[in-house]
Structures are given as structure tokens and as C-alpha cells.
């Protein structure tokens, strides 16, 4: 993992992260990526098709995804995309960073709940 690559994407957007995550298991075409994003985010994120392809363009320009194959299914042209090595590295770094932040957030919430000086602690104690 090149440090400058990560620093460029340190503020990676949710859609970039979801797209990379969708492609983590296997190559997918546009519609497949949309379905995966829907599943990953439990329906919270439903990007517009053009927005998804703009994201794919940007990720491809950064060398994070690339074309895997093209095919015609039921008369419809499909282009599938896959993660590059840089994409895999970035996704694993980003996933680790997000997991770390999530663990910290949970720990602080637990501490807040158990702190008798806090509102939540008082409410929790009364209960």
C-alpha cells in the first residue's frame, strides 16, 4: 500500500467505500454493484445509476478498479469491473480504519452509559 494513495483517499466517501466493498468478493457489472450496495447498506444507500458510473470512472482513473470483461446478456451489453491490487489494499486499510473508529465509538458509548456523572448514567441509575 502506497501511503500517498491512502492519504489521497483518507476522506473516502461512503459511495466509494460501498462500491469497493461490493467488488471485494467477485467482479460485478453495474446492476450487480447496485444490488450489492443495497444489500451491504441494508437499503440505506441507493445511488443513482449515473452517480455509480461516475464513481466507477473515478475509481478507475485512480487505478483502484478496472474492467474485467464484457459480454452481452439477453441482448444487453454488460461490462464487469474488478478491484485492482491498489483497490484491495485501499479497501483493507479503509475497512481497518473504520472498524477501529467503530470500536472506539462503542467503547465511549459504554463508558458514557456507565459514568454516574453523565445524564445517561443518572438516567440509567434511576432506572
Amino acid at each position, binding site marked *: 500500500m502506497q501511503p500517498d494513495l491512502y492519504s489521497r483517499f483518507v476522506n473516502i466517501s461512503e459511495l466509494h467505500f460501498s462500491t469497493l466493498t461490493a467488488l471485494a468478493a467477485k467482479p460485478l457489472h453495474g446492476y450487480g454493484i447496485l444490488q450489492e450496495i443495497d444489500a451491504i447498506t441494508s437499503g440505506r444507500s441507493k445511488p443513482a445509476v*449515473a452517480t455509480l458510473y461516475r464513481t466507477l470512472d473515478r475509481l478507475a482513473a485512480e487505478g483502484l478498479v478496472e474492467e474485467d470483461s464484457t459480454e452481452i446478456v439477453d441482448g444487453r451489453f454488460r461490462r464487469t469491473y474488478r478491484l485492482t491490487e491498489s483497490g484491495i489494499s485501499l479497501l483493507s486499510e479503509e475497512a481497518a480504519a473504520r472498524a477501529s473508529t467503530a470500536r472506539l465509538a462503542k467503547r465511549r458509548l459504554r463508558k458514557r452509559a456507565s459514568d454516574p456523572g453523565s445524564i445517561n448514567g443518572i438516567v440509567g441509575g434511576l432506572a
Partner: protein
Amino acid sequence: MSKLELQYRWLMRAYPSNHRARHEDEIVFTLLDVATDGQRRPRFREAVAIVIAGLACRVQDSSELNPGLRIAGVAALTATFAAATMAVVLAAQRPIEIGLVPLIAWLAVAAVGFFGAWATSTYRLASASTLTLIMVAAGPSMMGLRRSILIPAAVFLVLSAFSRPTRRLVRSVAVLAGVLLGLAHGAFISASMNEVFQDADSPWVYDAQWDIASDMAMINPGLLFVVWPMAALAVVLRRQLRYVFAAAVLTAPFVVLAAPFFVLPHSTPTNFPVYVSGFTATLVLAIVIGVPWRQRHRLDQADRSG
């Protein structure tokens, strides 16, 4: 091909042609995959996303222009929008005059030309509308240009806006069109002055007795609107054709910066706007010519030292 697919493909025209050639099919088929059963029209959200993404692509493509033209494009756009705002304010104070139509046409050139792919047609339409309206506004003869010259030129430019086979021919007469446009712009300004300053004693009416000040006031816009477009074309014709349209972007503010001043009712004629637009023209062209040359000079130096 379903009606829905046709509508999506029409929306895809927001993208530049090179992007459409590569991605149109996959984007449209994904949109059809996402569409619900019985859906007849594109969803509003999807349509907006297509247009925004397409325009964003065009802006990204324009970044391939050299730095000087990018800076000049921004300068031209800023000046044009400022002048357009002024024109709208003036229009609110008096009945809308005919000059606003070419002003809007050139504003469109400035806005669209910066994004690249649609510049050709927009430039031709703006040229055609300018020439046509000058004929309407100024009568049978003005500044040596007769309708017998202007009408074929206008028809030719209108046709070229829609007809593919004439494009090569248009390219070959680009310089001529530049000269005609320059003269036409000068004539348009003159026509506007003639319309506004109807006082028979005014030196601004063609038939009145002229003095040196009014002669200079007439000559300056003429020179400005002939010489600068020609200079811009001379610079750009040595490069790619798309820079011709960048030149159109650059010349637009020269007209729109000066025109609103000249059509002010009950104002004293002044050369000030000519000087202002001349200064702007000089500044913008200096940037256009200077920045790429400077950059090339640096590259040459790097090559030599490397």
C-alpha cells in the same frame, strides 16, 4: 427499442461523445435493469443524475485544454456573466431591445464553449443570430456591408449549424466568418447607437455632421471588433480547431462588455467602454498567448537541461 430506452439515450446526450461511445450502452441497460415494470418515463432522480454526471464529464474534458485557455475561459465567463447581469438590469428599466438576443446567444457560446463538445453548433447559431439581427436592426446598408453579403452568410451559418457535410466547408471559411463577425459586431454597436441617439443634432446619428471625437468613437469599436477576433483566430488556427471556439469564448465579452453601455438611454456617449473592453481584450489575450508560451519555454528548458 422501447420508449423508455429512447428517452434515456436522449438524456445521455449530456455526456461528451467519447464517453457516450464507451459507456452509453452499459449505463442505459443498467438504467433499464433498475426500472420498474411498466415504467414509461425516466425517474426524475435518475434524469437529474445523468445530466449532472454528463456535464461533470464535460467540465473534466475541458481540463485537457492548455492552462492559458482554461484561465481565459474563466475570465471570459466571468466578464460575460457580469455583462449579462448588467444587460438584464437595463432591460428591466426599458423595453427589451433586440440587442439582448445576440447577447444571450454569445453568452451561450461562452458557457457551452468552455465545456467543449457542443461548442461548434452553439458558435454557429450565435454567429447566425448576430448576423441576422444586425440585418433586421440596421436596415439595408451599413458600414459598407450589404444584405446581399450578409444574407448568404447568415443562411450559410444557419445551415452549417445543422448540416454535417458543410462542416468541412465551414472550417475552410472560418477566417472569413471571423472577419464578418468582427464587422458585424462593430455594426451592431453602431446600429444600437443610431437607434438610441435619435437627436438630429447628435454626432452619434450617421447622417449628422461628425467631428473627430465621434469619428474616433465609431472607429474604435470597429477596430476592436475586427482586429481582436482576427488576432484571436490567427492564434488559434495554428493549433487545433477546438481552439477556434475557445476564441469565440474570448471574443464574446468584448461585445457584451461594450454593448450595454452604448444602449443606455439619455446617457452621454463616451469612449470609456471601448477602453474598458479593449483593456479586457488585451489582458485576456495576453493570458492566452502568454501562459502556454511560458509553459512551452519551461518545457524546452527542461528538455535542454535534461
